[in-house]
């Protein structure tokens, strides 16, 4: 143990980092308190908060300070006299490294825990009771913060072990932190631009940008929430451990005399120099690839500018780090390596493209197909985690996939960029391997595919089923009447059961039209109320959010909702109906009535006026009608009056039993024909 760790040195490390550590703690605590107050003011309309949302600055602070801690504690390696003192200490190099590194991690973890606790406390104090903290996100998120700090510290430790000046420490740190990911990112996007059929799932895990915590957290600040997955955690743990081991080896081998030098030897110096220059070269490289793909005119000036910048970076790095002008001449031959790197990057992508485009299996070669994602108005939005486990081996599906993949490949080869409306991402299982592909298909092909997919009972069942409450949370989109939590839960539960009990045909009609409508809408067959059920669910990778308006597709839910609305509104509106008064604030509209020809009509909104001849009579009629039905269920599929008080915002729902406009209805209440567009009957047929 003493070979690798010294408790005395560890304690000394903690002491040395005291000033930086206290600064770090203070900043973290301020950010926790600030964010709690800020979130309490700005996010009180949310229903749920994840641990990350309680303090979005925390991971950024951890990233910055993890680097500062590490650079500070190992800065002795930048000065010869300091280096002599520390390397003269009676401790093995490995023990010195791990003891000080442990001190860095200790400060960092301590700060994360303190800040997290403060954030949770702040949340409890400042957020309203309607907002809940998703407790299950706490351990994963805090662990990821810790691993992020571990990751950054390990990179900084490598940089400190390799270089001997502050400038080169920072430069190499940034290089290791960003360069692999930047290279990967540009490589990935260049490849995917050249090969649009190549989704993220076809690429190695380490090429996916969200797996780098720096990119991930900065991305979170910009784009918002995405759940941390176990894969990310394991990946980061493994990578950080590997980096730490590399840093330890480099530290152990480090020569004390390397202090004050930008790199331990010329080879390493060349690697740094070439990497920095190549980062700049990525821009023209990407552009060269784009020009090939789009057959755009090549802008020579553009390439001259960027390659000149790359050359400047190349020579400037050498000059700044070594302070020797004569070295500039010495490094000229290594430019050849830079040229080869450029050619390798461009050539590599072309080679991969060629291989992928040649890989077009026939339907016979395909064992089965799994659907990863379907971006289509046909399919609605569905959590893909259940669907992607279903293997479709029917020949029709295989033929459709093979044919459309081949068509997409031909378009790419011909540099055609006309895309169909529907994007589909699939896993194609072949003999001994699986390939992921993504391509567009036409509406007709989409319908055809859906028809054959629905032959699979597992798919049909999964596609229709909403999540159980264990894996999803249900909410109402707004609550102007002040329903209690129990009342809301009851409505949501009714909705969930009612939808799960739907026949598939009804379900297809329902999801194709049921996005949130902010007003009363008749769309397709259904009447939609301006109230939606929201479902927030997650699988191992992502959060999903869907909204379904309450409608006549779910009459039980609509009944429950409308009865509750009536309970909160009836006294006020009945009173207003009995006494319209001078203020014209009551309006009436009607749905699902019958005209003289027996056809369905709706009634446009009409404002009841005390000066209207029949208005008073109609108001009394409505009040009397409501009183008769007060204890009965409200059927949204039957003729329905919606009385709205513009002053209070309250609403009263009243069924019209015989479906015909009463004689006392004012002339201003005009019946109109509703929208009766039917959608997707072709799939069902």
């Amino acid at each position: 143990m003493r070979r690798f760790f010294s408790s005395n040195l560890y304690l000394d490390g903690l002491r040395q980092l005291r000033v930086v550590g206290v600064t770090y703690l203070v900043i973290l605590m301020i950010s926790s308190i600030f964010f709690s107050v800020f979130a309490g003011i700005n996010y009180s309309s949310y229903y749920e908060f994840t641990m990350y949302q309680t303090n979005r600055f925390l991971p950024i602070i951890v990233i910055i300070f993890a680097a500062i801690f590490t650079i500070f504690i190992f800065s002795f390696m930048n000065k010869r006299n300091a280096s002599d003192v520390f390397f003269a200490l009676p401790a093995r190099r490995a023990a010195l490294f791990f003891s000080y590194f442990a001190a860095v991690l200790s400060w960092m973890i301590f700060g994360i825990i303190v800040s997290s606790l403060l954030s949770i406390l702040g949340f409890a104090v400042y957020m309203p009771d309607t907002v809940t903290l998703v407790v299950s996100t706490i351990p994963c998120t805090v662990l990821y913060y810790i691993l992020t700090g571990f990751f950054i510290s390990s990179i900084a430790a490598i940089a400190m072990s390799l270089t001997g000046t502050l400038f080169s420490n920072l430069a190499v740190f940034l290089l290791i932190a960003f360069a692999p990911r930047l290279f990967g990112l540009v490589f990935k996007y260049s490849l995917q631009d050249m090969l649009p059929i190549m989704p993220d799932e076809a690429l190695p895990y380490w090429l996916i940008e969200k797996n780098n915590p720096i990119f991930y957290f900065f991305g979170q600040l910009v784009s918002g929430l995405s759940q941390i997955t176990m894969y990310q955690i394991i990946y980061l743990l493994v990578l950080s451990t590997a980096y730490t081991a590399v840093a330890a080896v480099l530290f152990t081998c480090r020569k004390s005399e390397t202090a004050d030098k930008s790199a331990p030897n010329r080879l390493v110096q060349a690697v740094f120099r070439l990497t920095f220059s190549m980062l700049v070269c990525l821009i023209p490289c990407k552009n060269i690839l784009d020009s090939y793909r789009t057959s755009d005119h090549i802008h020579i000036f553009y390439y001259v500018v960027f390659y000149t910048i790359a050359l400047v970076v190349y020579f400037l790095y050498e000059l700044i780090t070594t302070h020797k002008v004569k070295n500039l001449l010495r490094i000229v031959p290594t430019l050849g390596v830079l040229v080869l790197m450029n050619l390798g990057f461009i050539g590599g992508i072309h080679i991969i493209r060629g291989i992928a485009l040649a890989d077009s299996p026939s339907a016979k070669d395909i064992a089965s197909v799994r659907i990863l994602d379907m971006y289509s108005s046909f399919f609605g939005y569905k959590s893909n985690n259940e669907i992607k486990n279903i293997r479709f081996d029917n020949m029709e599906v295989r033929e459709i996939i093979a044919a459309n993949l081949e068509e997409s490949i031909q378009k790419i080869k011909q540099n055609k960029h006309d895309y169909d409306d529907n994007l589909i991402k699939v896993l194609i299982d072949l003999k001994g391997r699986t390939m992921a592909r993504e391509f567009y298909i036409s509406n007709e092909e989409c319908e055809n595919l859906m028809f054959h997919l629905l032959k699979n009972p597992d798919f049909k069942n999964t596609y229709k089923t909403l999540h159980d409450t264990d894996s999803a949370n249900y909410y109402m989109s707004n609550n102007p009447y002040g329903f209690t939590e129990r009342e809301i839960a009851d409505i949501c539960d009714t909705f969930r059961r009612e939808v799960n009990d739907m026949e598939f045909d009804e379900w297809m009609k329902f999801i194709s039209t049921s996005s949130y409508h902010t007003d009363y809408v008749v769309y397709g067959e259904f009447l939609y109320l301006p109230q939606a059920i929201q479902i927030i669910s997650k699988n191992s990778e992502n959060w999903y959010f869907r909204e379904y308006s309450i409608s006549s597709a779910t009459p039980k839910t609509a009944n429950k909702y409308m009865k509750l609305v009536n309970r909160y509104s009836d006294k006020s509106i009945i009173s207003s109906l009995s006494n319209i008064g001078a203020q014209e604030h009551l309006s009436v509209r009607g749905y699902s009535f019958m005209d003289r020809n027996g056809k369905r009509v709706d009634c446009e909104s009409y404002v009841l006026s005390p000066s209207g001849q029949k208005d008073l009579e109609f108001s009394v009629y409505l009040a009397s009608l409501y009183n008769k039905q007060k204890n009965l269920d409200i059927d949204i599929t039957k003729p329905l009056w919606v009385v709205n008080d513009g002053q209070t915002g309250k609403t009263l729902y009243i069924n019209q039993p015989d479906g015909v406009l009463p004689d006392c209805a004012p002339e201003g209440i005009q019946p109109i024909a509703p929208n009766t567009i039917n959608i997707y009957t072709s799939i069902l047929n």
Partner: protein
Amino acid sequence: MIKAEKLTKRFDDITALDGITCTIPKGCVYGMVGSNGAGKSTFLRLAAGVYKPDGGLVTVDGMPIYENPEHKARIAYIADETYFLPGANLKKMAGFYAAGYPSFCMKRFTVLTDRFGLDIKKPLGSFSKGMRRQAAVILALSRRADYYLFDETFDGLDPIVRKLVRSLICDEVIENNSTVVVTSHSLRELEDTCDQLALLHRGGVVLESDVGNLKTSLFKIQVAFPQEYDHSLFDGLELVHFTKRGSVSNLIVRGDRKETVERLRVLQPTVLDALPLTLEEVFTYEMEALGYAFSETGIQGTEQAI
């Protein structure tokens, strides 16, 4: 005992130490003198386990130093350029060394800081160069080490402090049988302190000897004869150097002084004086005998130092 066998250390294209072999006995105050770039500091860093040898070996009591914490704990190394933790004072540095060195003695630290008259709470950054060196000496001596390696430590100390440090070193050697290695480019610094001296030049040991032995084994004879004579008159003596002006000759002779005087008296000279040599003169003549010019070394001589 510190032993170096064919010890070699290179920095890029420069060979700082080129196959040095030397032995520093236990309980000895060993001086290493040489000009800038001779390899003194490099030798000490190798002996302290800071550098890893590129060739050969350096051992302490038979064990290699590099990556050997047990033996490194017995060594206190004071570099030519002092270093202290940022913003630290003597007290904080004592804590730092106490954490690293099990034998660090806080009591001794307190006694030494009193003797030197330094404020342990004052930031070391505000100390003068000489005071920082004193602080470094205090911290080193507080470690109660078996081996002390001082790299040009005396430079920058005033004569009174230098005397104090010298006495403290001697106390360590006498009381604890510690071994001290001191480097300097001033012979005068080392003459009064060291038992043994080594001269380094261009990465190699040119001369190594006991100081007393150096001074007594070589001496100057001034002799004059009425008749004509040349150096062949003195065949039989181990002549290191011979100059003659008129009838007076200056001989640098290695050997027994009394015996040499008796032999020359038989020849009935008109003048016969046996004079001691300064250390600088000893080095000069010894190096001449080896084919070097003392002036090449750039070492400060005894007269110049005074």
